[in-house]
């Protein structure tokens, strides 16, 4: 049930991109300002996690777009201390699971092993772990889709379209 609602939330987050007005989306690392809610090693680990969720391909991935800093900013400012605590706990769990399965820290795993760890966490029985991974994934997707790079280069953001057409054929 929890998982279902988490998936539903993700759908809403992405649907929001289209149905919410443009101000509701978007950020850049410059607008975030300094955020130091995690230790340096924790932040590095989070960066590897967001990069695993959305990796660099022929376009930048979540790490180089600094999506991990967006995730930190959102959790610190908008979600409260309990969720912040769960983030820190979740990061510990990630390395525990990585060590348990592969005898290595998460950062030292290859892409497939990393994906296995995150998939394992997504299926965890523990609600706190589930909340951690779904929130990080949700915020990573929101942060990525609303970043300056993606908005301008992949989603063709226009502040002032100057029109509304109610019934347009989808280009195939």
């Amino acid at each position, binding site marked *: 049930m929890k998982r279902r609602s988490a998936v539903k939330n993700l759908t809403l987050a992405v649907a929001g991109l289209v149905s919410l007005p*443009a101000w*509701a989306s*978007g950020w850049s690392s410059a607008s975030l300002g300094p955020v130091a809610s995690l230790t340096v090693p924790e932040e590095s680990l989070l960066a590897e996690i967001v990069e695993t969720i959305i990796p660099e391909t022929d376009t930048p991935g979540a790490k180089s777009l600094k999506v991990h800093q967006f995730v930190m900013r959102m959790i610190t400012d908008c979600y409260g201390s309990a969720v912040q605590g769960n983030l820190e706990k979740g990061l510990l769990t990630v390395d525990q699971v990585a060590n348990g399965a592969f005898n290595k820290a998460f950062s030292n795993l290859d892409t497939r092993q990393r994906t296995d760890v995150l998939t394992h966490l997504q299926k965890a029985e523990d609600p706190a772990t589930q909340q951690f991974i779904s929130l990080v994934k949700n915020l990573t997707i929101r942060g990525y889709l609303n970043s300056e790079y993606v908005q301008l280069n992949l989603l063709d953001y226009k502040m*002032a379209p100057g029109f509304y057409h109610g019934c347009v054929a989808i280009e195939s």
Partner: protein
Amino acid sequence: MAFININSIKVRTFDAIVIGSGISGGWSAKELTGLGLRTLVLERGRDVKHGQDYPTAMKNPWEFPHLGQMPQSVREANPIASQCYAFNEDAAHFFVKDAEHPYIQEKPFSWIRGYQVGGKSLMWARGTQRWSQYDFEGPARDGFAVEWPIGYKDIAPWYSYVEKFAGISGNKDGLPQLPDGEFLPPHEQSCVEKHFSQQMAKHYNNTRPVIIGRCAHLTKPNPIHHEQGRGQCLNRVLCQRGCPYGGYFSSNSSTLPWAQKTGKMTLKPDSVVHSIIYDEQKGKATGVRVIDAHTKEMTEYYARIIFLNASTLNTNLILLNSKSRRFPNGLGNDSGLLGKYIAFHNFRTTISAEYEGFSDTITEGNRPNGSYIPRFRNVFKQETDFLRGYAAGFGSSRMLNNDLSGFGADLKANLTAKKYGNWRVSSHMMGETIPKESNYATLDAGLTDAWGVPLLKLSVAYDDNDEKMIVDFHEQMTEMLTVAGFTNIKTNDQPQKAPGLDIHEMGGVRMGKDAKTSLLNKWNQLHACKNVFVTDGACMTSNSTQNPSLTYMALTARAADYAGKELRKGNL
């Protein structure tokens, strides 16, 4: 800026004083200065100059660090303001913060306020539907509140007058229950909205029209709008930030600069009105007491007429606080009804659904508007077990149905693939509530705000009629969506949504034919103090279902015209 010697009565004397600079105060300023009257416009909040004081208006999306979401500390500090749909990162600076302006809720009432030059005209939702004769006739026909002293024919020319200047887009639908206005070109309905409209026409024999909303946007400006310095709406849909192009109507972009150009307006921000001064010998009001928002020093200003446009509940507060020997219970309050019969719009519930057709179409661009379902219940005669009825907004968008499972390169590719799901529609109810004596505003006997003004105490609640109407909205809309082929229909009543979040509170200083049962006459003058005019939402005898601002504008222009004539005749 001329040097103002506060010790001189002469420089503190004007022909007219307007209290408030929001949507109705702006119109008072424009009309009174247009009559050549030297007019003092008092605004309790800070100045907001068109264009230059819209700090977020030109921000790119990625310049907001929290995707518009308010930080938790701000939400916790503002439990009331945070309930407002528009209290977000881009516009929160235009909303009153809870701690700065306390009030007392005898019953839950979320009072959403905008204290600045322009008031809530900066952040309003811009819906502008005319009232019809069936709305004005409501109280007399159905036996509630008190009979309106005016009808549609009295206000129709003034609707036209304000529509031409403000710029209202809409379609001439020819509906008796929602009269046409002076329209700029309408926005387009989406294919799903058109489909719903056609299906409703067929199944309900044209008794339940679904039209494009009428709204205060310059879809095609006329010379009068260019003359105001306003330009075409660019479909940014960032309106609540203030529009640098003047694409929608606000006091800041339209009426106030127009009044300024006459050279007759003195605009004083940071001026908290304490009360209206009543002179027993003269038998009329002579001015107002104003507290400087910063120094808290009190100054009196004088004028021959006063227009009270402080917003519904603050107008009630000012009159209740204007006590004199002649009016110990508040200015003009011989009937004892001042502050009573407050009503609002019931915005508690919504309904959503999906449509599986039109899968090869989408919308493009942005529309600062939606479709609109005018009231169809009890319009021409009483036909249900509740009084009056509801209008409804109706909007649509295409859902995205991207596969968000998994992690990695596939997920990344899926995110920007734009895989479309069903069309989704949603509709929000805008229910008429019945003004009742038990829904009231009073002053607290002991508590005052930072300016020494008594706190307003609100006792306003839903009633059984509202509950029945919610049930009917669910039933009727479910039937309508079903016959039109919609699926996955879900209602979403939120009983915890307190009255007030509609931001359509009205009444307390109602108009009427009889001084024993009302506060204002048919020209919006206090029966008992004829040189005080109340033309904001406080004057409303009943509240119907339409977005109210257009009616306030028309009533204001009509009252100002009358005040000018009466001044010339020496009657005021």
